[in-house]
């Protein structure tokens, strides 16, 4: 059978199954009604050049639209997401779903531009975020969203005030500062070459003055504009009674600058404007790269956050209405549809359904709940509509209280990283003291104020800048980029250091050690089994078990066809049934089989799925959450580094013990609530451990925020990624080992660099104190010492990680 691409989305399907249409001489093929609709819309609007721009990129098929547009015009929604400008224009930030290439961005912008009432529409290609300004008198937000949906994309709002605006602002500020720094440094360097040449071959004072003055003009913006960040950092450090790295860079650069002005105006000695510009620019670039890695994490977070509902369906005296979650009070009756996320805690009054509570307990297997049982916010209703009575308002519901607790704990996060600057902090204090002593000594015994000042400043100049300033940022930079290449994102450079010092690793079970979703571990097929039928049946449900079966079938059978089923019915918490050409297909758990009088008795400690055709059992599957590949090996290697590994889980003891035994963890804590996990982390702290915690769900977030270093899985819950310090994009357990190895290696390089620069200073400073420093030697040794530091840092890249 020939596979033909759909005229709109380019995905290839069998010709037989596609909708064909005659358009003049061409025959058009569409995979679905949605794509067909979008195609004709674009033709009609004269936007068909989209397809030229699209090339052979495949889109996702345009879906038929869901009917929730009215929620965009509700007041609660507007209050949360829409900014109203002074002149009455509204602004909203949206994330557009379904963008695959630049042609999609082009199409969306084009269509929005053509819409009346839209004043500005800008879409960012790399993160799919759009900013739209419109005139509320002409068009409503729901119409705008409808427009976006009508061309096959979807849009949902996010709140940029959270982090993004701040992140973008700092990024831009850094960028401008770096531009100024790089520009000035480059220019100063070529002027400095003339200076150096003049120093060795002789130069007239008149020319030297001109060069000095030009350097002065260029160095001034670098120090005060680009270097402002260091002055600010030094000030905050001073407020907290700390002499930090920023203070060292700032005081060193400032003193070199003052000394150079002095040397320039009095025509004594050499100027150091080039070192001023260079150190500020280099260290600034290092800091900027840290800001960049932080920004990426924020982007993923926003995408996930946007999907939490802001409205619920309230039933009052038999009338349904959409009400903003803030306006719901305890006692209200709420209707929940399948697939919806619960945002308010309550008790079920009518109906029954399975709930996905994985974000709360960490367990992927759904929980069946019926009338009179509690449902918790954060869980997702999977398979049926029901009504429940709110027992709390939104701000007291579990989801919100966890978020609130988190916000508090993030600000109070233990700051081990403050220790990171300890050595350099002491050092800068000592150097400043030595300089002061030198000044006093020369002034008292030598008697000349001028000479004493020059010598004491030269102590600071030779001691502080490059080597020590670069020691930490250079190595962490190499470490971070190396980790990023392996899919490990460190949100801040200092986390490398904290992680290197850690001696306890706490692991969550579900989603961290295990895959977090059930997969088939054992399958038995009997006579009459047809994989196509089962595949078609399980594809109708998005229950994790069904998805596990579908994934298994896709992996084990080469040719699978989806057959048209009739009368598909999903039976809450039991299974699914459907008709195919008169035969009854049933798939579900043991209870479902017993209900329809099929004998399927079987004992297993795993979840079971049975498949019956016309009341005859044809297949049995055992599903269980599988342990991630190489988990045991990674844990063994982490243990070999002298790190204690413990497991924390919300699951019951028996399955926890089973998993722990398989991966080689001795210490386990089972049946923990989110708060219990956090308390345990506190307990570890009290015992003097530096704790690294790895987890993925909302249930782990409290503990994650308490831990010194929090590692989150890339696909984990949005909040978990938000509070974590390190994100593992590929979710492999060996990435945890690699993160440890890289951070330890980096920390070693930092220590080596610091040791080297201290040694260098131990030699150079006494020479400077005694007044032997020749300016050329000072300049040369300064550059050489920084080269050594850079070279040593690059050596990190040559480290070998144990392969798997």
């Amino acid at each position, binding site marked *: 059978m020939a596979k033909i691409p759909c005229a709109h989305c380019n995905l290839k399907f069998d010709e037989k199954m596609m909708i064909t249409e005659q358009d003049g001489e061409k025959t058009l093929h569409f995979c679905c009604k949605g794509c067909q609709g979008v195609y004709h819309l674009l033709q009609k609007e004269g936007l068909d050049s989209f397809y030229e*721009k699209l090339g052979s990129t495949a889109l996702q098929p345009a879906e038929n639209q869901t009917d929730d547009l009215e929620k965009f015009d509700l007041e609660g929604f507007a209050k949360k997401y829409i900014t109203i400008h002074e002149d*009455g224009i509204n602004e909203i930030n949206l994330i557009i779903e379904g963008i695959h290439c630049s042609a999609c961005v082009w199409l969306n912008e084009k269509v929005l*531009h053509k819409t009346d009432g839209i*004043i500005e529409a800008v879409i*960012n290609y*790399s993160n799919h975020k759009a900013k739209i300004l419109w*005139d509320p008198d002409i068009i409503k937000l729901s119409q705008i969203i409808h427009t976006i949906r009508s061309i096959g994309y979807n849009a949902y709002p996010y709140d940029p005030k959270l982090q993004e605006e701040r992140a973008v602002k700092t990024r*831009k500020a850094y960028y401008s500062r770096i531009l100024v720094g790089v520009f000035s440094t480059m*220019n100063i360097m070529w002027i400095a070459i003339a200076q150096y040449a003049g120093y060795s071959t002789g130069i007239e004072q008149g020319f030297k003055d001109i060069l000095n003055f030009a350097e002065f003009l*260029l160095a001034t913006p670098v120090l005060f504009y680009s270097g402002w960040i260091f002055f600010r950092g030094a000030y905050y450090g001073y407020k907290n009674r700390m002499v930090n790295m920023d203070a060292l860079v700032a005081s060193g650069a400032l003193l070199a600058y003052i000394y150079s002005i002095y040397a320039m105006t009095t025509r004594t000695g050499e100027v150091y404007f080039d070192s001023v510009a260079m150190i500020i620019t280099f260290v600034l670039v290092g800091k900027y790269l840290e800001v960049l890695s932080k920004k990426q994490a924020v982007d993923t977070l926003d995408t996930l956050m946007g999907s939490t509902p802001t409205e619920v369906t309230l039933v009052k005296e038999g009338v349904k209405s959409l009400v903003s979650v803030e306006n719901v009070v305890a006692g209200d009756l709420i209707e929940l549809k399948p697939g919806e996320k619960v945002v308010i805690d309550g008790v079920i009054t009518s109906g029954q359904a399975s709930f996905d509570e994985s974000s709360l307990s960490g367990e992927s297997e759904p929980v069946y709940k019926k009338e009179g049982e509690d449902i918790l916010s954060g869980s997702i209703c999977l398979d049926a509509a029901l009504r429940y009575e709110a027992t709390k308002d939104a701000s007291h519901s579990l989801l919100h209280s966890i978020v609130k607790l988190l916000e508090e704990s993030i600000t109070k996060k233990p700051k081990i990283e403050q220790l990171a600057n300890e050595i350099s902090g002491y050092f800068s204090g000592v150097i400043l003291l030595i300089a002061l002593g030198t000044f006093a000594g020369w002034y008292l015994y030598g008697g000349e104020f001028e000479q004493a000042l020059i010598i004491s400043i030269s102590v600071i100049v030779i001691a502080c800048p490059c080597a020590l300033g670069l020691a930490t940022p250079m190595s962490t930079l190499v470490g971070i980029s190396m980790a990023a290449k392996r899919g490990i994102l460190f949100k801040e450079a200092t986390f490398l250091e904290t992680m290197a010092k850690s001696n306890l690793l706490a692991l969550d079970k579900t989603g961290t050690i295990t895959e977090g979703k059930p997969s088939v571990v054992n399958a038995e097929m009997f006579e009459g089994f047809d994989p196509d039928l089962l595949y078609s049946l399980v594809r109708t449900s998005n229950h994790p078990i069904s998805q596990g079966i579908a994934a298994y079938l896709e992996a084990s059978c080469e040719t699978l066809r989806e057959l048209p089923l009739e009368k598909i019915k999903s039976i809450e918490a039991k299974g699914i049934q459907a008709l195919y050409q008169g035969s009854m297909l049933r798939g579900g758990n043991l209870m479902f089989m017993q209900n329809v009088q099929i004998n399927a008795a079987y004992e297993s400690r795993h979840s079971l799925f049975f498949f019956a055709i016309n009341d005859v059992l044809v297949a049995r599957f055992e599903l269980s959450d599988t342990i991630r590949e190489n988990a045991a090996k990674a844990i063994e290697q982490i243990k070999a580094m002298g790190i204690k590994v413990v497991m924390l889980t919300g699951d019951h003891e028996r399955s926890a013990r089973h998993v722990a035994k398989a991966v080689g963890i001795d210490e386990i804590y089972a049946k923990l609530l989110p708060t219990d996990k956090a308390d345990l982390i506190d307990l570890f702290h009290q015992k003097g451990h530096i704790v690294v915690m790895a987890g993925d769900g909302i249930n782990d977030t409290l503990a994650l925020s308490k831990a010194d270093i929090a590692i989150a899985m890339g696909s984990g819950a949005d909040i978990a990624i938000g509070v974590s310090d390190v994100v593992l994009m590929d979710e492999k357990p060996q990435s945890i080992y690699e993160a440890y190895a890289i951070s330890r290696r980096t920390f070693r390089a930092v220590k080596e660099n610091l040791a080297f620069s201290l040694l260098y200073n131990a030699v150079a400073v006494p020479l400077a104190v005694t007044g032997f420093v020749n300016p050329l030697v000072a300049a040369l040794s300064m550059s050489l010492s920084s080269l050594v530091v850079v070279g040593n840092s690059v050596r990190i890249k040559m480290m070998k990680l144990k392969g798997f």
Partner: protein
Amino acid sequence: MSENIMILMLSVSTFLGALGLIALLWGVKSGQFDDHSKFLDAARYDNEEDLRDAAMMEEKKKARKKQKKEKGMPPD
């Protein structure tokens, strides 16, 4: 080479460089480099139609401002 020539060379070259820097800083501030891939696509898809589009958006903004004025709304 006299000192004046050197002053002239230094100041002219630095000034020209500074002009470029200022243009770049303005670009950063006005958000032209926020989206690097779009920055490149703009060159790929640039044509007359897009120019008309941009002009149309400008018109829309102007029209709205004018309308507000005509309505006699307070200049808030």
